[in-house]
């Protein structure tokens, strides 16, 4: 296990890359570090590897501090963003290179190569030179070379980030499957939310050097701690609506900004409020609500269609409530017209409620829901 304890990293006198970050990396988990550019993701990886030094805090491996331990003595393998193959060497020799550099015996080199190439489905390509491989094959070889060294912990910095979308999509499955077979701990940095969800056993979300949340994909997706996490995971992104809690006819309601419409506040959500009148926002994922062309029992909030986006399998309908925009994913045959009024199933027990950007209530989930 790796433990980061109050880790702070400063570059020079001004740049604070990581601020007081603490989290654990559990044995044999696939941990994804996810965040926008400049979040401190690569810095975190480099600190664990020992390539850069801590400013303050501590990093422990199996209970012992890694401070002062040289990178080569950490039993970790780090793959950098450089995935260029040697064009004059065969696939086999490319894979053997990092092991030969470490003076592994020939037999062990051969065994490792057979195992990794089987996992990555490149066994038939071992005699070829990189010039005779397809783009996808080349990437798999490069990936294989990155993890050919035996280690208990692999650190991967955007290992498939530079590839085109189709190839990325295929390789993320290959990479995850290989990680499961190797039975080692993986820490991977990415800027793609789909990769984080698809691959991570847990996801650590960083922004501006601060750990915003760490949890399983399910926790991150369904119980985001704040608006940043909520808006940064999932596609289409979560919609946010400014609302004001007010009393109306003795009942507590959320009134939408910029219009007279409102939804009632349940006792459950009312218990999360704090008496403040401002800074509340509702968050809703496009899959968490439905629409109807007529008002009915469940569809009580009118909205004007702003835009309809066909995506083949489904359509995303964005509609306006006052000044706010709400996205809803619907079946591909449902196509309301722009400016038409539709009715949304906005129900405060099935929404995220944020106060000053922090989540105070999450949707009640039906665990057995069939989609």
């Amino acid at each position: 296990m790796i433990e980061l304890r109050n880790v702070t990293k400063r570059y020079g006198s001004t740049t604070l890359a990581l601020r007081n970050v603490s989290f654990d990396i559990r044995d044999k988990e696939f941990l994804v570090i996810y965040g926008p550019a400049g979040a401190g993701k690569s810095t975190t990886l480099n600190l664990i590897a020992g390539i850069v030094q801590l400013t303050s805090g501590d990093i422990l491996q199996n209970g012992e501090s890694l401070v002062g331990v040289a990178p080569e003595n950490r039993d970790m393998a780090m793959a950098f963003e450089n995935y260029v193959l040697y064009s004059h060497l065969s696939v086999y020799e490319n894979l053997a290179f990092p092991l030969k550099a470490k003076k592994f015996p020939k037999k062990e080199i051969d065994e490792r190569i057979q195992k990794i190439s089987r996992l990555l489905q490149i066994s038939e390509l071992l005699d070829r030179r990189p010039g005779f491989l397809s783009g996808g094959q080349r990437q798999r070889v490069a990936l294989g070379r990155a993890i050919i060294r035996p280690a208990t912990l692999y650190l991967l910095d955007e290992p498939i980030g530079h590839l085109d979308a189709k190839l990325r999509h295929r390789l993320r499955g290959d990479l995850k499957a290989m990680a499961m077979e190797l039975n080692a701990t993986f820490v991977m940095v990415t800027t793609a939310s789909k990769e984080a969800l698809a691959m991570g056993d847990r996801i650590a979300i960083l922004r501006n050097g601060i750990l915003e949340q760490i949890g399983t994909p399910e926790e991150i997706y369904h119980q985001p701690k704040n608006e940043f996490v909520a808006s940064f995971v999932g596609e289409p992104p979560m919609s946010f609506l400014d609302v004001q809690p007010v009393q109306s006819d003795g009942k507590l309601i959320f009134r939408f900004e910029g219009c007279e419409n409102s939804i009632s506040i349940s006792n459950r959500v009312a218990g999360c409020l704090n008496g403040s009148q401002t800074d509340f926002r509702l968050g809703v994922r496009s899959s968490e609500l439905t629409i109807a062309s007529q008002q009915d029992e469940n569809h009580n909030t009118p909205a004007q269609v702003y835009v309809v986006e066909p995506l083949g399998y489904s359509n995303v309908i964005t509609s306006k409530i006052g000044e706010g925009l709400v996205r809803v994913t619907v079946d591909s045959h449902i196509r309301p017209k722009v400016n038409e009024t539709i009715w949304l199933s906005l129900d405060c027990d099935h929404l995220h409620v944020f106060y000053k950007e922090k989540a105070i209530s999450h949707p009640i989930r039906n665990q057995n829901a069939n989609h």
Partner: protein
Amino acid sequence: MATISIKNLVKEYGNVKAVKGISFDVKDGEFVALLGPSGCGKSSTMRTICGLEQITDGAIYFDDKRIDHLRPRDRNIAMSFETYALYPTLTVYENIAFPLRSANWSDQKVDEEVRDIAKRMELESILDRLPNELSGGQAQRVGLARALVRQKPNVFLLDEPISHLDTRQRHRMREFIKHLHLELGYTMVYVTHDQEEAMSMADRIVVMNEGTIRQIGTPDEVFNDPADDFVAGFVGEPPMNFIEGTIEQSDGRWDFKIKDQQFPLPEWVRAQGEKMPQQVKLGIRPFYIDINLSEDQPYDLSGEVFIVENMQDYTIVSVDTNDLRLQIVASGDFRAKRHQKVFLKFQPQFIRFFDLQTGKAIKSGEL
């Protein structure tokens, strides 16, 4: 506004034929996306429409007027590019105001217009900044705002205008541009490599590959009736699965055979009878395959789970069968273990066939 007509357009760079004689029309007020992978010729086509590049052969018309010999500024176009240079000495505000000031708008009208678009595009807080103080995404939004600020151009030309934005902003800009198009009715040509952008925004999509047009159609047509296996594989995410196999007829049954597995074909294929080629490529999208953990339901193919990717709202399951890896989109609560045996059923109405040699779609009505 104007119509655009591209006739047998050829664009060569030295010996490289970037665009190999393509023709298409954009109707007055239509939103057309040029979609394809890098190097397909979409940007070269766009640059000839703008006048940033000379054409090698063919012709370009706005309405009935041939314009391919005109200088860019004489074509009355508004454009925004992936890396469109902002004026480095002007603030964001003045960059956006520039086209309006050039058109002699009053200060008050300029101010109203700039503040309106800045609000819609979330630029209000950076109006006083200079271009070198902006992030890549911010600079791109300023470039887009400058192109979209109210003018009366013949056509709007946008080349990857939102490629540098993060997911949240990209969705907002997509919605904003599409809504603006509906509101103002501009003729628009939009270049992108992102199939979801093209699908979500365009009235029609021109799908290009290797300097040629593979299909022109509405998002529905391109998605549901792709002209060939290139279009079928490029549009849609996760991409369509392809399976090469043999059509076999015995005892009045029509089966699709892959190695040691086979399953009956949809009615329309049987109706085509002898006219179907024997060797074909079957295509089916991941969303249209039902997956079961037990074999008590009828199934077409069996296989074993390679990996399960739980995206929360849905699950992508990769299944190995007959040396093939198929992807299936299942519900968000689908669970299975690696190497677990699963049974697949293709929804027959969504099965497509492609010619093994040419890649062209074999359609039910055309044989």
